[in-house]
């Protein structure tokens, strides 16, 4: 049974990698044979050369650190603001009910398009990126903190009451530890949406980081470099999301 499953997984992996290699071969052939213009699609061999050039000239890991730094700083600020606000929305339930619908609508709204407003207020600098990241990150943390505190098991609350715990002790010893998996779901959503928002803003404003790197390649009309930068951003975002997912799985198991 185990061997059959492993064989099937290996088959899936082999076909997946094989089809990727076939796609790369088709791209190479279609450009070198003149089917597709070099100004539209770059042959993978040129993309590889461009990737090596980008690695030496553009310092992509510096761009990565810049993007990650702003993203994590925005999330740090959002946790500092969103956790107490989420607690307040749970503690004062009328306010929670009044604002829940609004926060849900704001979460689904295209907040990224508010950036001209912050550009006007703060200028084209890190402040705009940070505040946009914070706006994106705060709402899921607030909503999930409230949800996490609302769904704490009544059995745990009764245990706390039977020990005559104060309200503060109940919060720190019982409610927060029990709500952590749900709260981290909010933080995970924040980490995903904030990275996407920061990369998009860097791209729109040509303001460094991973998004700025892709935008710069396009502006220079360096087509192989553009493809290499896009592949780099996609691979890095994949690693980032896997790490975030891994942390959540670990937290659930603890």
């Amino acid at each position, binding site marked *: 049974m185990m061997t059959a499953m492993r064989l099937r997984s290996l088959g899936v992996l082999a076909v997946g990698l094989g089809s990727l290699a076939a796609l790369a071969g088709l791209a190479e052939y279609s450009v070198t044979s003149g089917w597709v213009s070099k100004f539209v699609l770059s042959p993978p061999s040129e993309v590889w050369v461009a990737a090596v050039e980008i690695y030496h000239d553009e310092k992509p890991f510096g761009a990565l650190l810049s993007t990650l730094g702003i993203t994590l700083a925005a999330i740090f600020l959002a946790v500092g603001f969103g956790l107490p606000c989420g607690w307040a929305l749970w503690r004062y339930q009328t306010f929670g009910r009044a604002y829940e619908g609004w926060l849900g609508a704001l979460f689904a709204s295209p907040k990224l398009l508010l950036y001209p407003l912050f550009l006007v207020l703060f200028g084209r600098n890190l402040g705009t990126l940070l505040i946009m990241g914070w706006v994106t990150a705060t709402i899921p943390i607030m909503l999930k903190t409230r949800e996490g505190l609302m769904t704490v098991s009544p059995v745990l609350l009764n245990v706390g009451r039977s020990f005559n715990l104060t309200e503060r002790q109940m919060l720190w010893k019982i409610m927060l530890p029990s709500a952590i998996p749900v709260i981290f779901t909010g933080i995970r959503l924040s980490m995903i949406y904030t990275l996407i928002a920061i990369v998009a803003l860097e791209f729109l404003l040509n303001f460094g980081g*991973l998004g700025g790197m892709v935008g710069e390649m396009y502006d220079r009309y360096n087509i192989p470099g553009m493809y290499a930068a896009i592949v780099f951003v996609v691979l890095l975002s*994949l690693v980032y999301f896997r790490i975030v997912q891994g942390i959540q799985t670990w937290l659930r198991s603890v």
Partner: protein
Amino acid sequence: MAEIGLARSAAAGTPLVGPEARIQIATVLGVWGMWEALARSGLFYRDIVPSSLKVFAALYAHLAEAEFYHHLWTTTYEVLTGFTIGSLAGIGLGILFGVRRFLGRVMDGYILALAPAPKVVFLPILMVVFGIGVGSKIAMAAMSAFFPVVLSTVAGMLLINPTFIKVGRSFNAGPWQMVSKVYLPSLVLPVITGLRLGLGVAIIGTLIAEIKLSNAGLGFLAIQYYEMFRIPEMYAVIIVIFALAMGANALMTKVNDRLGRRGMPNASDISGAA
């Protein structure tokens, strides 16, 4: 009737407006008051925080202009065309990946890798392939909508009661009959959920593409006003964009809730039945 209701609630001593609504009204008035105070304080450079009266005057002026509707139509056309293409591709491929599980497993890795990636980085490719006109914006909307729709369709396919599929096959249903009589009726709720998410990201994707490089659409209009430092007009366009995006989301949520209430099979029902 309404008067009787009002009289009754007054007689019973219950407030006409609930506590949540009072908090909401107070919040709106508080934010509006703070905005007006900031606008008149002189703390900010001219028109960076314009009076709400100026913003509403700009909004009114826009709504009365024919050119505004040209931009509104361009964005609506790009969003709806791209959303339709992306959704149809998402539903079609989602069903295919659900039926042909080996193919589905092979594609899972690629779809899961690309789905959460910031789609905006693909915009340069779309502009190189489709140009800087309407085509690249439609492609951006289609690509943005595709991933949530295909993911929820595949998830829905995996939760269809196997008995339904066996019944379809025992009646010798053809591929199209299986799709129209078995798969699609079982997929209504997961697909609607995917469409709701897809429409939201299609709107964002289109507007970002318009902001980056275009010559028409609401995103173009907003960024043009920013560059011309016509801030009240910029705020007016942003209000329209937010109203449209939130309205579209509310509409899709309502459809989703209504179908759920009517007892349309959803993922959990199907999994329970299986």
